């Protein structure tokens, strides 16, 4: 009865097939984006350590492959994105401008949200990024509304709805997936399972093997993929997108990955061992994908170094832009509550 499946195709075969489908330049662009996300997140971490940021943030270091794989498999900027709180990587991947993101991170007037949202709420409305969400599962019930809107306006867009493992245990998850299923809505529910909802491990929070197993409750496809392999993620999301655009309804995808850093800036990480973190760091998605591209003759050492240098440059420039950007004017504090 369950349509859920865990990928069994050999990684190597899949990689070759996917590289062919994606093409050399996009594949390189994806690696480039993963490197840029890592650089952005490392800079964000550094800024916090130096005391230059205000408020909390949630870093996605180690999860770059799932962000990039998911975004690149849909029409970034044309489709709709509902992001979660650990969303810097997704916003970058969706095509948002790093300067405006960094300005928002520093709370500046010319940031994406005029400094009102900050790290946890970056939205890029022009690119149909409907915003990152500070409430776990907060974006999930919004997704069917986006889906209905697409249906009624008769476009071939879709809604990529991102959330973490923790969100799958909120009641809203059930209401949303059921509604999307009965109305065949063009929604891709993309669960980034990074193994922990703050301190609560998935082993303790779920009594099922795979979060994607829940898809059978809604009679929709569910699939668990290696979230540290951008090609595996791309493959699953691409198929879900085809299904969504064909009017066949939603899909639940679970991407297995790992959060290297703490939940937020004040996490002592007493709930996991250093060995466990190290074990996942050995599965770093960036060198792993670089090796795939090198093996396929699409990348060499010089290109990789150039990507890293360029990413660092972009992040430094973004920071300079953000630092030079104006603070919001106190006289505008009431703006934007009502339209």
């Amino acid at each position, binding site marked *: 009865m369950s349509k859920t499946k865990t990928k069994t195709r050999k990684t190597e075969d899949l990689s070759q097939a996917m590289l062919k489908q994606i093409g050399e330049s996009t594949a390189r662009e994806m690696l480039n984006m993963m490197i840029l996300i890592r650089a952005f997140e490392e800079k964000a971490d550094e800024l916090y350590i130096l005391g230059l940021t205000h408020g909390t943030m949630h870093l996605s270091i180690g999860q770059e492959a799932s962000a990039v794989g998911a975004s690149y498999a849909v029409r970034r900027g044309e489709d709709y994105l*509902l992001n979660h709180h650990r969303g810097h990587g997704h916003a970058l991947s969706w095509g948002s401008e790093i300067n405006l993101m960094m300005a928002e991170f520093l709370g500046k007037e010319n940031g*994406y949200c005029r400094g009102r*949202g900050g790290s946890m709420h970056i*939205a890029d*409305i022009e690119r149909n990024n409907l915003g990152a969400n500070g409430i776990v599962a*907060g974006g999930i019930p*919004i997704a069917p509304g986006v889906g209905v809107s697409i249906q*009624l306006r008769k476009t071939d867009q879709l809604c990529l709805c991102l959330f973490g493992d923790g969100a799958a245990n909120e009641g809203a998850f059930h*209401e949303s997936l059921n509604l999307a299923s009965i109305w065949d809505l063009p929604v891709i529910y993309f669960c980034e399972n990074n193994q922990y909802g703050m301190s609560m491990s998935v082993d303790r929070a779920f009594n099922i093997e795979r979060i994607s197993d829940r898809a059978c409750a809604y009679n929709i496809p569910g699939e668990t993929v290696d979230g540290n392999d951008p090609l595996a993620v791309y493959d699953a999301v691409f198929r879900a997108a085809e299904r969504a655009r064909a009017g066949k309804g939603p899909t639940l995808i679970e991407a297995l990955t790992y959060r290297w850093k703490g939940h937020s800036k004040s996490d002592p990480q007493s709930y996991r061992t250093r060995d466990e973190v190290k074990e996942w760091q050995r599965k770093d998605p960036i060198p792993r994908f670089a090796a795939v591209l090198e093996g396929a003759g699409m990348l060499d050492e010089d290109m990789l170094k150039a990507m890293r240098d360029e990413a660092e440059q972009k992040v430094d420039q973004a920071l300079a832009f953000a630092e030079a950007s104006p603070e919001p004017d106190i006289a505008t504090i009431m703006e934007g509550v009502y339209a």
Partner: protein
Amino acid sequence: MPENRELTYVEALREGLRQVMEKDESVFLLGEDIGVYNGAFGVTAGLLEEFGEERVRDTPISEAAIAGACLGASLTGMRPVGEIMFMDFVALSLEQLALQAAKVRFMFGGKTKAPFVLRMPAGSGTGAAAQHSQSLENWLVHVPGLKVVMPSNAYDAKGLLIASIYDDNPVIFVEHKLLYGTKSHVPEESYEVPLSQSRVVREGSDLTIIATSLMVHRSLEAAVQLSEEGIEIEIIDPRTLNPLDDETIIKSVVKTSKALIIHEAVGTGGYGGEIAARIASSEAFDYLEAPIRRLTGLDIPIPYNRTLEYHAVPQVENIVVEARKLSRGEY
């Protein structure tokens, strides 16, 4: 068109929905049992046949998803009108309303808008007991970014509903079960009653009553009785609770020097406190000849028993007594 054309509150709401849907493809309806069942109180009767199931959508019993779907559709070019079967159930939608819909515009730097309406009937008097009888408007008034509208008659119901649908903000539209059958003059054409405009329902010189929803009617009845005693009551219906037009209220209290605030919702933490504070901190303070008084629902869950239920919320005779005392300076 006959000048005296009368419709019930339910018919007026339905006519408003129909006229907007005929004109505007971006408007659609969703909620529990609004299609084949016609809505729990019949507001959407006939609309499924007229507009089809794409635009009149029966949902599962999923109040979080109803509110979320309204938000998602409104962020992407639509103007949905959702229905929550009883206002009590809005408790199950609050996350989407208070933490999402109310915040998106501000939180994203004013770069988006969420134009949707969520309709819901409040109020006691139907024997539905504690979980189907509440007036919870103040929960939503307390969240900047939401508008809260509370029509007290059929004319306002239609005009405020159309204005709410075309407003670019999330609007909580609070109806009252005991008002659904009440009639008033309703023009046939489509019209808007602007939001955030209080209405002087009755003019008087001795005392200002500020009343919402069903309490406007009970206050009017009380005013007629008191008029026979020579006490002339002025009645103000705020109609939109947030953002509130308090000028009309303050102007009236300046004139009458006395204020009585009446709502069905429980008193503690209720909307009456807000109105009292606005009056007391305005120029009307200098004109007050008596304390500002409130007459509200008791601080209890609504009881099932008919007699107890009756006594849980302000009735005409309570208003008469309270208004008479206050106007005579007995407090």
